[in-house]
């Protein structure tokens, strides 16, 4: 009796040691990656600054100060200087960062939803439907996308919702390919067969058994899509098709700074630094996650 309970205890202990999930493993590996941790800390600071920063500032992003035009950094309470209308650059930068990050997250979410649904259905159902769906993706792949995004912005006027949708609609293609590939390997696994044997319908199998199991590669791709989206929005703003003034985004600020750079280089330099830092943190996290979740690449 005592022996049995002791044995039971050792068994539970052994299980406790073994019972580290895939995600815990990945997390440990991620934490050991200096670049990824640096990226996460930097990103946390940036997100916090974007959320809280504008409230703490004594200025608002669209507040015109006629007496404070073209001030260099640190002058008259403007830590990063001011622009041609005397607006505080730091405040505008924080708002711009908030807008860029929001677009990054939302548009990526749009691409995630479309891409995962499309890829999982194509991969799981297979056959003719798969062929048609993936052929459609192939065709879209070979289009000069930026033109269509530009056309969309021109057609419907640039509003922020449209930017989310347009960029999200462009970025889902790769996601759907990744998801389809994963689904193809998953669908012949035993647990899917068990689900099918127990009479679950296709929709439920895809939603409850396939999708949760392809999270790994999807998470990695998401962290790499966010910077791509931020870049795409900035590019549109740079061409004057993104968010409209007095609203700011990182791209819009850089565009404005580029046109005034002879007179006021700080208007170009500070937004550029923030932009590059943001993109780098995402890329470091993405690379770190890839190594952590998919260790065979190392």
């Amino acid at each position, binding site marked *: 009796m005592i022996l049995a309970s002791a044995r039971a205890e050792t068994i539970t202990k052994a299980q406790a040691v073994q019972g580290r999930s895939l995600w815990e493993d990945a997390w440990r590996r991620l934490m050991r990656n200096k670049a990824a941790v640096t990226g996460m800390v930097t990103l946390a600071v940036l997100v916090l600054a974007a959320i809280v920063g504008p409230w703490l500032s004594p200025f608002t992003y669209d507040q015109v100060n006629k007496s404070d035009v073209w001030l260099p950094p640190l002058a008259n309470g403007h830590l990063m200087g001011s622009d041609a209308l005397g607006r505080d650059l730091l405040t505008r930068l924080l708002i711009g960062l908030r807008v860029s990050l929001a677009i990054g997250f939302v548009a990526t979410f749009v691409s995630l939803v479309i891409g995962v649904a499309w890829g999982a259905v194509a991969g799981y159902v297979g056959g003719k439907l798969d062929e048609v769906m993936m052929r459609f993706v192939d*065709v879209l792949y*070979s*289009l*000069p*996308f*930026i*033109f*269509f995004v*530009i*056309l*969309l912005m*021109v*057609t*419907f006027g640039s509003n922020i919702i449209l930017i989310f949708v347009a960029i999200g609609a462009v970025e889902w293609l790769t996601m759907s390919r990744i998801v389809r590939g994963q689904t193809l390997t998953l669908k012949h696994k035993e647990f899917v067969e068990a689900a099918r044997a127990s009479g679950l319908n296709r929709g439920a199998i895809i939603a409850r058994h396939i999708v949760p199991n392809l999270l790994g590669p999807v998470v990695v791709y998401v962290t790499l899509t966010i*910077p791509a989206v931020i*870049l795409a929005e*900035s*590019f549109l703003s*740079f*061409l*004057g*098709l993104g968010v409209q003034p007095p609203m700011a985004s990182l*791209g819009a600020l*850089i*565009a404005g*700074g*580029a046109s005034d*750079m*002879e007179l006021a*280089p700080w208007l*170009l*330099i500070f937004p*550029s630094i923030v*932009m*590059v830092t943001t*993109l*780098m943190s995402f*890329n*470091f996290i993405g*690379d770190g996650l890839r190594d952590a979740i998919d260790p065979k690449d190392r």
Partner: protein
Amino acid sequence: MLQYIGRRLLVAIPTLFLVITAAFFMMRAAPGSPFDMDRKLSPEIEANVLAQFGMNKPLGEQYVDYLAGVVRGDLGPSLKYRDKTVLDIVKENYPVSLRLGFFAIAIASVVGVSLGVMAALRQNKLTDNVVMTVAILGVCIPTFVTAPLLVLGIASKLGWLPTAGWNDGALANMVLPIVVLSLPQIAIISRLTRAGMIEVLHSNYVRTARAKGLPEAVIVWKHALRAAILPLVSYLGPACAGLITGSLVVEKIFNLPGLGKFFVISALQRDYTVVMGMVIFYAGLILVLNLVADLLYAVLDPRVRLA
């Protein structure tokens, strides 16, 4: 091979058709017309102008007319630049964009592959770390940041190169645009090459080559590289799309007479035919380059059979 090329070109036709259709109706759905002036045209004049360009017909009929024109190789007249056809505009301006793009991708390939191979051969050593850090910077710094900063530093402050302009393609005017366009490509290409090279260097046939006693240089540059740059070749298509995006920015910043700047302006002015012409031009270019990439792939990798 010829048969394969023929089939691919046939498949490209529906794709182009789709592109044309989508662009045509999107453009027409936009509010406003190319003939909106500051001063409103009198209804009679407006009717005449519309009739001159066949725009008084129903939209469906205009679409069929346009398609028929495209098939005959006629992209129509520009609605904004009088006396110029769309073909004139494309012909006059594409050499600038193409020249920049060609040099950028050529330089990026040579530099990127060399850096990638160097990094792979010294994996996890100093050279590798330096190259990969630079590469990640290159991926993260967008062209619209590098371009103004380089202009500010090298052209404005130091005065080594002209800040903008084309000057009939003088070398000095091309240096900065090409550098700006090629930097992100160098970064991506060197990462791809490094990853491919590391994998190939561990493969069986490289071990065989080593066992035969081949010199290391022959193994690396002749045997390994050929397989290592395969991912690079399939990157060629997207890379060209990236160059187009880049050239929109670069042409704007350096004020170059390329095609890119026409696109945004024409779209904003509702110059329907010019926008359509450019969409067709670029879509065709991307389709051809994707085909070239696939052909190259088959040439480099004897395991790939074109079917």
